[in-house]
């Protein structure tokens, strides 16, 4: 579904992605973790072309990302993206946020889009907030709307870029629960997160990055109990000690 082969990216002189090789198969849940500045977010932002890369090959759902500009829209319709800072449209209600792209990009009728949008907002527990504007919602509620917005396009892949990092601690669970239920349905996902407990329970594989490189890839069980790399042990020691 997603295949990185020798992908490299530079920000000026800074080498932010170094020879990335990674394949994510259909239905797999891959959690990407690592210290901040390690290139995790850049990695998943490449998948739907929000960031360009300079060298290597990245194939997503049969499309060569970056080489086929005309097919990027087609790709993005199939790849849902959830941002750390939600990025809901402030001038639209929750339901309008969810149905905007299905109506204008997929060409769905307003009635059908609204029906699907309502079902998704119900599903993320916001059945009573459909008419609310983003500023009237809590962070956790906004992020759940953002997830529903991505799902309403019926994507094949979902990407999450630190979906709970901007949330107050008591709202983290409501968002993670939605992601866990998606994993249970077999959605292909890449999740960048610092929530190690969540990573452990939901991931099929954990990818650990540092300084732009993938240091190790392992099952959550083996990564969390017995990391193979020095840097992995060091990182886990820092995030798990409290």
């Amino acid at each position: 579904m997603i295949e990185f082969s020798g992908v490299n990216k530079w920000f000026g002189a800074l080498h932010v992605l170094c020879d990335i090789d990674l394949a994510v198969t259909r239905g797999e849940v891959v959690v990407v973790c690592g210290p901040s500045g390690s290139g995790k977010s850049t990695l998943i932002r490449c998948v739907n072309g929000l960031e360009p890369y300079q060298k290597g090959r990245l194939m997503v759902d049969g499309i060569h990302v970056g080489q086929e500009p005309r097919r990027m829209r087609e790709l993005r319709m199939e790849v849902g993206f959830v941002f750390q800072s939600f990025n809901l449209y402030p001038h639209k209600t929750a339901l309008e946020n969810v149905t905007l792209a299905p109506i204008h990009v997929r060409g769905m009728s307003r009635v059908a889009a609204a029906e699907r949008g309502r079902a998704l907002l119900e599903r993320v527990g916001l059945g009573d907030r459909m008419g609310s504007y983003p500023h009237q919602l809590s962070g956790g509620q906004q992020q759940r709307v953002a997830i529903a917005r991505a799902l309403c396009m019926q994507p094949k892949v979902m990407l999450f870029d630190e979906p709970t990092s901007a949330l107050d601690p008591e709202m983290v669970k409501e968002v993670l629960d939605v992601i866990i239920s998606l994993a249970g349905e077999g959605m292909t996902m890449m999740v960048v997160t610092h929530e190690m407990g969540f990573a452990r329970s939901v991931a099929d594989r954990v990818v650990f990055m540092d300084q732009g490189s993938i240091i190790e890839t392992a099952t959550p069980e083996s990564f969390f109990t017995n990391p193979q790399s020095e840097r992995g042990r060091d990182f886990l020691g820092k995030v798990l000690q409290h």
Partner: protein
Amino acid sequence: MLLTHLERVLNYWPMLLRGVGTTVGISLASLLIGVALGFAFGIIRTGSNRWLSRALGLYIDIFRGTPFLVQLFMVFFILPSFGLELSAFTAGVVAMSNMAACFIGEIVASGIRAVPAGQTEAAMATGMSRAQQLRLVILPQAVRIVTPALVGQFVLLIKDSSVVSAIGLFDLTRSGWIIVQNVPNGLIVFGLVGLCYLVICYPLIFSARRMERRAQAPVL
């Protein structure tokens, strides 16, 4: 003395009304064209084509940095020597719309830049085309941000329209010139002319102030 002058000036009301008509007409026409063109300018200025954006930036700076009277003379007296003969009204509308578009273009561009990049990314990530991103996500937010500045620009445009009297257009200022030749009391005549401008502009000033107050509220 003052009262008889006032009475005599008021006898010229059809002339004053004609002046108001021209001023409102030319302002409204330039405003509509200027807004349409200004949005196009703003979009190009913030677009991905850097050379087009720079070329337009230079063009805008030229018209923002020269007196409107000079621009008007260029359109009215110099274009004909290149074979483009315009009536005074058309020349006025062309010069005013162009200047309005330059100012409005920069205002719209600043509004587009003020919308957080995350909004464009979110719209892009759902597969929207650049045109859809602008129409559905960016411009509605940009317009809310710049509405007070835009309305302020509209007021300036109406007042700047007095310059078109210099090419012989019978606008509000011109009607004052004619009346004062018959009733030699500049205070009363131009006081009245000024009042007419104020009456035309005040609804805009008033609504701009209200919008500014609303813009300060947290509701976007």
